[in-house]
């Protein structure tokens, strides 16, 4: 199913923190993103201490949790909207959220509600077994990440990757960057030598030019913080603004 996001060409993948400012708004934002050209949507389940995130997404997590969002509330939301959203959806959250829910129970709920994959930034290759086994059993892809520091680990990770590969554009945490200086070509070349599954670049992409450039190097671009900033600014009124932004980004990616 995830594959379908990459079949029409380059994919634009927006990231949305669920429950910021509330789950009704998230529902509208997801629909707007879908209608404006998103090819796959990453839904963030907030975590109290998101160690891979920069300040923008950290604050979104804090706001959403303060407003009472829970894992169950997010599953319910997915269930409500899934029929209308005809592109793959993946969760992005932290290991403890899944572990605490019960990895088997969590991935079963994913299948029931129509979630196609899970991204867990604090589960590296060495620790994935406990999660990938139940993911496979329940038919959910556990997405692998590859970083600029991965070097010799790239082929090992790529060979076992499922769904798509999340290529981390640069060192550090999520958040906008003026420029992305990592030489991604050799990383993506190595990935392609080892697997046929698509790879998308994320971290630090905030404008159409960057998105187009990253997508041209790979199979797609992932954008998080730039969207969360719009949500932070407009709150409940943000869906249409996010829609506009997604359209500009998706158009740039699709033309790249």
């Amino acid at each position: 199913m995830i594959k379908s996001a990459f079949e029409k060409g380059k994919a634009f993948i927006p990231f949305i923190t669920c429950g910021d400012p509330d789950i009704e708004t998230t529902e509208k934002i997801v629909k707007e993103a879908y209608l404006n050209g998103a090819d796959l949507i990453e839904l963030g389940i907030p975590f109290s201490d998101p160690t891979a995130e920069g300040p923008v997404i950290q604050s979104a997590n804090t706001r959403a949790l303060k407003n009472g969002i829970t894992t169950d509330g997010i599953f319910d939301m997915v269930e409500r909207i899934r029929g209308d959203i005809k592109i793959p959806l993946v969760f992005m959250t932290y290991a403890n959220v899944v572990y605490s829910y019960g990895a088997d129970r969590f991935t079963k709920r994913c299948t029931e509600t129509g979630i196609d994959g899970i991204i867990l930034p604090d589960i590296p290759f060495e620790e994935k077994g406990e999660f990938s086994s139940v993911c496979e059993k329940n038919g959910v892809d556990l997405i692998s990440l590859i970083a600029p520091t991965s070097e010799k680990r790239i082929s090992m990770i790529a060979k076992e990757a499922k769904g798509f590969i999340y290529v981390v554009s640069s060192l550090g945490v999520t958040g906008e960057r003026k420029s992305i200086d990592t030489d991604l070509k050799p990383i993506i070349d190595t990935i392609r030598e080892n697997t046929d599954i698509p790879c998308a670049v994320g971290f630090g992409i905030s404008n159409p030019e960057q998105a187009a450039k990253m997508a041209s190097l790979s199979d797609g671009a992932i954008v998080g913080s730039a969207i969360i900033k719009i949500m932070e600014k407009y709150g409940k009124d943000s869906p249409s603004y996010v829609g506009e932004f997604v359209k500009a980004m998706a158009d740039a990616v699709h033309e790249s």
Partner: protein
Amino acid sequence: MAGNKGRFGEHGGQYIPETLMNAVIELEEAYMRFKDDPEFKAELDTLLKEYAGRPSGLYFAKKMTEDLGGAKIYLKREDLNHTGSHKINNVLGQALLAKKMGKTRLIAETGAGQHGVATATAAALMGMECVVFMGVEDTERQKLNVYRMKLLGSEVIPVKTGTGTLKDAVSEAMREWTRRIDDTHYCLGSVMGPHPFPMIVRDFQAVISREIKEEILKKEGRLPDAVIACVGGGSNAMGSFYDFIGDKTVKLIGCEAAGRGIDGFETAATINTGRMGIFHGMKSYFCQDEFGQIAPVYSISAGLDYPGIGPEHAYLHDIGRAEYVPVTDDEAVNAFEYLSRTEGIIPAIESAHAVAHAMKIAPKMDKDSIIVITVSGRGDKDCAAIARYRGEDLREE
């Protein structure tokens, strides 16, 4: 099932972003290469002896023993180390290792400021750059230590996210490490985080239990009946326990910060109130809600105000080798004052948690039994906070 590296039973592991994986692998390789290297060992031994002032004394607390009327009480005086706590043992080891690895910059998290001060000290000594992350709450609680770190040439970054305490400082140090790996070593201060940190920190702190054993055999001709230490992440406790793990007659007791009591939310007693989870690079016990959100824990002691516990402690708990007991703010403050009055030793408020538990159990023990309490640090840093707790406002104006 789970990964094999750095496991203590089910606990431990390496739950970190891919960006950091090669850094921890490189660290492990370097540690394995240097830990038995005669030159490295000699260098570290000299530093511990001539710079940090080891061995630290094992002091017979005669007045306390007489006053409590039960077990003989010995105090392992980590408070007498240079920089005022056990933290220096680990920091000198890690800084030396980082230097051998060609790193020029140390980053660290700190709660009470003791680990930050120790790291800043080692950085000054070894000519390295140093940045310490400290929760904004803790920079308020421990102003003196913030000043000490700056005086030693370090930058102190107040962390405002989350609860503004130790856990947030750890998160921010981890984030900083993913930003800058090449020249930077993350000098983690406790037996926690991803492998190999729990092993490295334990090994560098194990000097405490080796010395206790040697000294008590010299003084008493036998092993103690109990070794008691406070536990946040658990480095001084692991150091105090490690050499005794095989000696089954020695009871190992870790004292957790219960804050205002383990029946409420204002507590940091992980073993007593937490459950299994994955956070800060490790699988272990954590205080958390039903959806796995990490709890905003509380303790009067900034150094124990942490929602998790090192994976080896979690394992010692699982197998019943060590016991973890809760000690409240009130009990710790009473012990802080008691040890000051009775022995003329002002313990760190962290260490006072261990003293408090000894005060509970010593009177019930035979007069020929022996308790060793690790006084992990000295309490000068805490005087203003304890005065506030007692309703007195100390200011130097």
